């Protein structure tokens, strides 16, 4: 069921994520624009998501805050460019921890046999921004695996 695909062609400014959901597209669409729904699925599992603003219409603002168990808060915001039920949402996305790096996200929903195929396409301002996003969050995981590699190599000398 989890048929997640992430495509990030080298040298491009785009990341395209596709996945199907066992739900009608009206419901999947609603999950992106309804504050109660967003609160329940958006962001990381261990974090609380606070929906500060969500004006789901062209020109409307959105702002979500992720609060981690240790109380750290991370804000994300943007502006809706298009909200066309139940097939398409277009909005900008900016992490407040790295202001000025804005991406344009287009999410489309196509229904087939009661399933919804979602395509989430993000276009970044530069290839460097795109690659930065791909590498985001690697600090902890990479540091850990690097430590293990270091230990391994040190032991082999």
């Amino acid at each position: 069921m989890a048929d997640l695909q992430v495509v990030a062609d080298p040298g491009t400014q785009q990341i395209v994520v596709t996945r199907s959901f066992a739900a009608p597209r009206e419901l999947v669409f609603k999950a992106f624009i309804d504050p109660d729904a967003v609160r329940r699925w958006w962001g990381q599992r261990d974090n609380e998501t606070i929906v500060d603003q969500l004006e789901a219409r062209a020109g409307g603002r959105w702002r979500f805050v992720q609060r981690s168990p240790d109380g750290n808060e991370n804000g994300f915001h943007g502006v809706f460019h298009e909200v066309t039920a139940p097939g398409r949402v277009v909005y900008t996305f900016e992490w407040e921890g790295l202001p000025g790096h804005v991406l344009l996200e287009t999410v489309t929903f196509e229904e087939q046999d009661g399933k919804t195929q979602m395509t989430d396409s993000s276009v970044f301002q530069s290839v460097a921004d795109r690659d930065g996003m791909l590498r985001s969050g690697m600090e902890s995981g990479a540091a850990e695996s690097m430590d293990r590699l270091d230990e391994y190599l040190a032991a082999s000398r």
Partner: protein
Amino acid sequence: MRTDRLNDTFAALADPTRRAILARLMAGEASVTELAEPFPISLPAISKHLKVLEQAGLIARGREAQWRPCRLEADPLREVADWVEGYRRFWEQSQERYDRLDDYLREAQGEEPPDDQEAP
């Protein structure tokens, strides 16, 4: 991370003999003769592979004139691991994000979440 070095590293790794040499060096340094032993190819051919690995910075050679032992160098491998790790983490984050949406959609439709056995 320097892209040209990453290119060199991946080019050097894109050969089964060279990967086997690196795997052997993980067990400790070795001479050219020792490294050549498991392979049905000539010593000059092995030397050529070692030169590619050395130019990519994946191995270093000792200075002893007679048996210049080869050993593994960590830095280029670290860069490769960094590069791969970034993609892995992004993929996992995307997976978690949309698994949560999947859970939400099931609940919204009044379905029970799938059993642990079925979960990926």
